[in-house]
């Protein structure tokens, strides 16, 4: 395997809450290969979105990211970077709510043309032509007419396509997706997922896709990381992680979503509440809610342990999940 596209090691995000520091992302490490789609799943507040935003330095006010982030735009060895160095140069992002992520006072054509005008020094007219090409690429019908429209005049699905076209306008090697389908209805969701998959193939672009929707992630991703309480608790090929969880949290998460096969077993909720980032449990952070917790679970320190060539788990007793 050649060099990685992105390497994140020991990423911490600290924020201030009522004057006290909290650490909603606490030691996330992951790597991504060229053209690969990595999913990050987790509950609200698990730190998945903050992890994603840290890569581009787009944390909310007061958020500070620390850790070793390396990226390689040209295929060489990944090198450390400042977020501003990759804005428009290799990494783009799309957000959950396309209505709020598009500038309401900019026509969508101008919005998409902004990147080419800044980074490729295109004239207004050339950039407009490029914007219309991009709109066609992401499947927006009659792009010439729609380029002159305002964001509020488009449907949710089209808005997200405009957002994707904007992200693609700078020809990124990595597209960060922050729950881009959550705000859309299901049929539009499928179209957007199909589009992302198609674009990955055509543009050889890697994707990190953050979502709480396991079904979406299973359909789209090559690999899947499960986050809990600011840490990755399990990572591996998406199909394996979903069908054979190696962490009790993953297993509980799978039991809480409707099955793909449509069998009618009862859905299981996870007892207790997602932990507060100001008061994480010591040891394994899932232990207080874990049905298999043992005494030594509260003593352990966090570490992702490989269980096979391509899988790792933070659980120290993954054998409890072995099928009887």
């Amino acid at each position: 395997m050649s060099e990685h596209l992105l390497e994140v090691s020991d990423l911490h995000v600290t924020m201030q809450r009522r004057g006290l520091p909290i650490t909603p992302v606490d030691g996330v490490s992951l790597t991504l290969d060229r053209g690969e789609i990595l999913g990050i799943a987790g509950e609200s507040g698990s730190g998945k979105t903050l992890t994603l935003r840290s890569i581009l330095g787009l944390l909310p006010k007061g958020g500070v990211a620390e850790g070793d982030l390396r990226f390689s735009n040209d295929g060489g060895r990944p090198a450390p970077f400042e977020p501003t160095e990759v804005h428009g140069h290799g990494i783009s992002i799309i957000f959950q709510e396309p209505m709020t992520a598009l500038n309401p006072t900019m026509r969508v054509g101008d919005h998409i043309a902004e990147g080419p005008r800044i980074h490729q020094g295109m004239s207004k007219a050339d950039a407009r032509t490029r914007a219309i090409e991009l709109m066609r690429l992401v499947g927006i019908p009659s792009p010439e007419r729609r380029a002159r429209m305002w964001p509020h005049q488009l449907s949710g699905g089209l808005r997200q396509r405009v957002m994707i076209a904007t992200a693609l306008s700078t020809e990124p090697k990595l597209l960060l997706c922050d729950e881009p389908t959550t705000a859309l209805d299901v049929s539009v969701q499928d179209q957007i997922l199909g589009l992302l998959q198609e674009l990955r193939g055509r543009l050889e672009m890697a994707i990190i896709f953050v979502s709480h929707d396991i079904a979406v992630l299973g359909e789209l991703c090559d690999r899947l990381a499960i986050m809990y309480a600011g840490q990755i608790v399990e990572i591996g090929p998406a199909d394996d992680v979903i069908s054979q969880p190696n962490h009790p949290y993953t297993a509980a998460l799978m039991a809480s979503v409707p099955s793909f096969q449509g069998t009618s077993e009862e859905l299981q909720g996870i007892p207790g509440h997602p932990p507060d980032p100001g008061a994480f449990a010591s040891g394994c952070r899932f232990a207080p809610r874990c049905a298999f917790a043992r005494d030594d679970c509260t003593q352990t320190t966090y570490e992702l342990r490989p269980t096979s060539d391509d899988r790792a788990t933070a659980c120290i007793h993954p054998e409890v999940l072995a099928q009887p």
Partner: protein
Amino acid sequence: MMLGIVLVVFLLLQITPGDPVRQIVGLRATQEQLEEVRAEMGLDDHVLVQYGRYVGQLAQGDLGYSYKSKKPVTSMIADRMVVTAWLLTAGVLMTLLISIPAAIAAALYRGKAADQVIRGAGLLGLSMPAFWVGVMLLLLVALPTGWFPPGGFGETFGEHVRSIFLPALTLAIGSSPFIIRSLRASTISVLNSDYVATGRSIGGSRSRLVRRFVLRNAAVSSVTVLALEIGFLLFGAVVIETTFALPGLGQGLVLAARGRDLPAIQGYTLLFAVIVVAVYLLSDIAQAMLDPRVEIES
């Protein structure tokens, strides 16, 4: 709505004490002379008759004749309006020139030194009364440098500009703090928005980000504040025109009120009301132009 304003102005002046006829004929005139003038002017008619007559004339664009100068009120107002239009336009321009950069800087450097300085200066500007600022500018700038005339409006365009500079600056010092406050707050909320995150992720310089993604969105909510502020500026003009001896509407109103020149007072008050309504209408139009989501229905 305008009819309501006319009625209120008319009634207010009817119930205020003081006899305009006495002001006209002078203190030494006899009771007979006084009654004669009163009848001549139709002031002995019933109040409602007088009101009907006033509205009737108004509908034909006639504001009556000044008791003092005997000139038509419309022509008095027209002369003075030019001066006040200069003052307000210059005042608004200076307000914007001060407020927009200051608000953007304060929002971008929120909580840092620049923000503190701008907010402190705003508080200072807010707490200084306009007439005092005006006098200070006259004493500390106009008199030592001789660049600006201490009063009057001048004859030529160049003289107008020089005469209007300090009064407009006085207005701007009083009104900028409001605009800065509002624009700073809306800029901060725009800077925290998702679309500015999108703008950042596209790359490019910060000034381009501010121009393309921030300014217009932040301006939308501050336009209303600016319109309200222009309403206040108009009344600020009353004080400032007196301080700088500018022959504008505000000064005219003060003179008319002192002389109990009822038609003139009514004329000025009515015009002020019309200007305020027009400014609010303009602000709605400006808002619709700035924000494509707002549509004006006729």
